[in-house]
């Protein structure tokens, strides 16, 4: 398997009574809580941590896009990737992902990803997402068009990367008289595409059809629920007439490594609760605006959550028992990740070490322990056979819709 360090870049300085005084960390969470001087430190610290991952031999580093919130401070992941492109040398730069639906100009995404790919000499992975429900509130995009806009923007971007321009695009949501993107991407036919998804059937089927990498979300959910999602993806690939490659199954998960199991929990837990109680705090309405998923898909997700997702996280035992995160000594983390990999077939591991308000020295220690004592053992697990004439990580010629 390959290992890509993910960073959420959370805001670590929310007031202690945040959960008592706020019903959401999103959309309407007042930006008076943001402090730019502390923000300067926070951004640079987080970028240092991703650069460290490059130095320690991670296969890649991952950034993502959220807007108007305390949960993740990267409204523009492409800016973060640009910072990293010149300060890293070999790690893949995984933008996980660009929220295609938010832009009336998806060509901007095509341009920026191509720029990053050329600057970095072909190190970019293009994650593409519909976006959380929150983003539709923050950017005033009609959520009932979420899926249509996503698929159309995706097709437009891939065509802009792969077909000679100029050509016209006459779509439902986007019209461009002249599609003629300069620069063209470094990787041929285009950078690998990863699609995160929360188990909705429509996304799973589409990613399977496209043979892209599917990253299982939500990151914080019971293991059984996520394993079922991975299984559904593999089944969808079988229905498409092929067996999923390991690298097509992406697994984002909270990971923390310390000298012993007890110490790991002791160091991790308070920062986990900052994340779970503050940063994940949200209104159901912001999470699920109308039409963001189809009605049938929403009914399915509601039913699955009733079975598998506790309404509230209250005890560490619950988190541990549900397999929400992987926390412990190097041996424990190694064994558990190997077990998960064996069970799910995952070949794209996306650990997130930066939980909540965990301080830099602990993140650094955890990442270093992981790189030294865990990662080498995972390398030999779930290795794909070489794909003939096909770039790795899903970079295949797009199948026409």
């Amino acid at each position, binding site marked *: 398997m390959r290992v890509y360090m993910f960073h959420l870049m959370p805001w670590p300085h929310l007031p202690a009574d945040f959960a008592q005084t706020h019903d959401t960390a999103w*959309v*309407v969470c007042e930006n008076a809580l943001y402090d730019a001087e502390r923000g300067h430190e926070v951004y640079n610290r987080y970028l240092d941590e991703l650069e460290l991952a490059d130095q320690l031999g991670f296969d890649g580093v991952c950034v993502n896009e959220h807007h108007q919130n305390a949960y993740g401070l990267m409204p523009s992941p492409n800016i973060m990737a640009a910072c990293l492109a010149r300060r890293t040398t070999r790690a893949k730069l995984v933008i996980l992902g660009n929220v295609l639906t938010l832009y009336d100009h998806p060509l901007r995404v095509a341009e920026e990803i191509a720029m990053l790919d050329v600057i970095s000499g072909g190190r970019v992975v293009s994650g593409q997402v519909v976006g959380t429900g929150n983003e539709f*509130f923050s950017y*005033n995009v*009609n*959520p*009932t*068009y979420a899926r249509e806009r996503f698929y159309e923007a995706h097709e437009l971007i891939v065509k802009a990367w792969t077909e000679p321009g100029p050509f016209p695009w006459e779509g439902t949501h986007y019209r461009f008289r002249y599609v003629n993107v300069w620069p063209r991407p470094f990787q041929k036919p285009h950078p690998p595409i990863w699609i995160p998804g929360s188990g909705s059937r429509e996304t799973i089927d589409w990613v399977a059809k496209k043979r892209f990498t599917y990253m299982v979300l939500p990151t914080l959910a019971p293991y059984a629920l996520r394993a079922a999602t991975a299984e559904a993806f593999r089944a969808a690939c079988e229905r498409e007439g092929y067996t999923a490659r390991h690298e097509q199954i992406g697994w984002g998960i909270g990971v923390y490594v310390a000298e012993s199991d007890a110490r790991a929990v002791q160091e991790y837990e308070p920062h986990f609760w900052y994340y779970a109680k503050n940063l994940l705090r949200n*209104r*159901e*309405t*912001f999470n699920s*605006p*109308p*039409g963001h998923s*189809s*009605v049938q898909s*929403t*009914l399915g997700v*509601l039913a699955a959550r009733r079975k598998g997702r506790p309404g509230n996280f209250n005890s560490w035992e619950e988190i541990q028992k549900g397999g929400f995160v992987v926390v412990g000594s190097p041996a424990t983390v190694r064994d558990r990740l190997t077990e998960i990999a064996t069970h799910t077939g995952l070949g794209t591991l996306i650990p997130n070490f930066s939980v909540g308000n965990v301080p830099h020295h602990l993140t650094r220690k955890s990442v270093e322990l992981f790189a030294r004592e865990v990662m080498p053992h995972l390398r030999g697990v779930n290795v794909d056979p070489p794909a003939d004439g096909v770039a790795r990580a899903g970079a295949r010629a797009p199948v026409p819709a």
Partner: protein
Amino acid sequence: MMTESVQDVGGRATRIVRSGRGRPLLWLHDTTGNRWTQGHEALVRRHEVIAPSLPGFDDSTTLGQIDRTEDVGFWLLDLWDALGLERPVLLGCGLGGWIAADFAARYPERLGRLVLVDAYGLQVDGALAADEFALTPPMLRPLVFAEPEASLAREWVPDAQPPERVESALHARVAAARLAWQFPYCPKLRGRLARAKVPALILWGAQDRLVPTAHAHAYAASLPDARVVVLPGAGHYPWLETPDRFADEVERFLG
């Protein structure tokens, strides 16, 4: 006696509920969808109340290219043809009121009278409608009901929909958001209302904190022949909270 049928309206299967005898009154529902209420029932004494489901509300997968009130207006023209309507009373609530006002500005000759109830549709400085899609049911109830703790409020804006309504409520919410997402108005409508040369009644719940009463007065100021009646004891749904008083005012206006 109440009847319910599904009719072809310009190629769109449309559920239509009707009851009563007398002058036809076409009722365009609000974002909660096409549900027969006490307000409808109170009007059937003197009118044939015709309540069609707006496009997509019963099945949001059929929305197709509908995404503005103008699109619904073309469907209304088809409805006029399908039902053989001649200058009926057009009554619209909330979102339906916006659609009715837009239709009246374009095709006033097709209407007998116009009734707008707590209608969306206008941009009013300093009185932006609250965001019904952002608010949870407990946050929404005090904005839309004069008595938010009453069982009626919990029935219409429940914390969780009862199982038999989960799916239909989701469809209605999608269809509503298609037309009314974030800014449920058209900035151009106010300037067009001068063309709506048809007697109009603007009915508003005194305690509508979703669409403030400033909108009622803005409608009255822009329409050529309109008067405002503000109903005490009602929020955004006067036909639910004060159905008899609501019906009395409509009947007095219609004569």
